[in-house]
């Protein structure tokens, strides 16, 4: 089941980031989450979406602030001087929302999941939020022209 979920998440991330956010990407199989956090130097934005139903857990999406600003610019087709904090946070939450919805619906078309509203999280509490969310995890490091990104799913059956 975990492999099927992993495949669904991987293809959802590709499709969503490329189609809606114009991010060309490749997955970095050897990527390390701790290195990623350290390289962001504290300038990391993250969001979480909790879900329940036939499967329960949380989706997380992480992006350095500068990368997220570029993604927001591309998403909204606006220059960065007209972009507000609301736009950036909204874009971050929308990415998480789309990855979650798309992953779960392609994982099981018949199942019904209840998705909560995505929220921006304090990245200093990342390990705490990781622990609370479930006992299984799927993690992706993503390389893009804009910079490195990460996505994570924690779940319990």
């Amino acid at each position: 089941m975990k492999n099927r979920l992993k495949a669904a998440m991987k293809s959802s991330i590709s499709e969503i980031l490329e189609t809606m956010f114009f991010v060309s990407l490749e997955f970095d199989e050897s990527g390390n989450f701790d290195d990623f956090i350290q390289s962001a130097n504290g300038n990391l934005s993250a969001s979480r979406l909790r879900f329940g139903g036939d499967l329960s857990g949380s989706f997380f999406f992480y992006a350095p602030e500068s990368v997220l600003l570029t993604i927001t610019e591309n998403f909204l087709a606006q220059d960065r001087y007209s972009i507000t904090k609301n736009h950036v946070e909204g874009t971050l939450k929308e990415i998480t929302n789309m990855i979650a919805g798309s992953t779960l619906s392609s994982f099981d078309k018949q199942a019904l999941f209840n998705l909560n509203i995505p929220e921006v999280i304090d990245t200093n509490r990342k390990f705490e939020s990781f622990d609370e969310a479930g006992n299984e995890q799927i993690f992706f490091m993503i390389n893009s022209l804009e910079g490195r990104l990460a996505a994570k799913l924690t779940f319990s059956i």
Partner: protein
Amino acid sequence: MPKIGGSMAVIILVVDDSLPMRSVIIKTIKVSGYGSANFLQASNGREAMRTLGNEWVDLVITDYNMPDMDGMELISEMKRDETLRCIPVLVVTTEGSRTRVEEFIQKGAAGYIQKPFTPEVIRTKLNNILGEIKDEESVESRNEELDF
């Protein structure tokens, strides 16, 4: 009633709790052949109901997952209201499960669009829905002419 077809002066209410998503939906619709459409915005179902009480709207495009009142509740509220029940509602959602889609249609949604979407998908859906309105209007105006 606003004129549909030709100049495409339709009024579309976009309901989504995400400000960037509302902006992207509006831009996508504009590049999909509806450049002269007028837009109203609401950040949840409750706000949308208030807008619908005060403004003429040809089409509602709503997110499903929103705080306060979600897209499904919005459709139910609209269907309970005699003046609003005929306004078509298009649901934009990340959730593509068959069960959820059937639920939207059962509640009375005119269609749904799954995110991520392309301008082509938006164009096709809008043409289908707004084309139907146009056809109904043609029939209505023809009947009015006959009555006259």
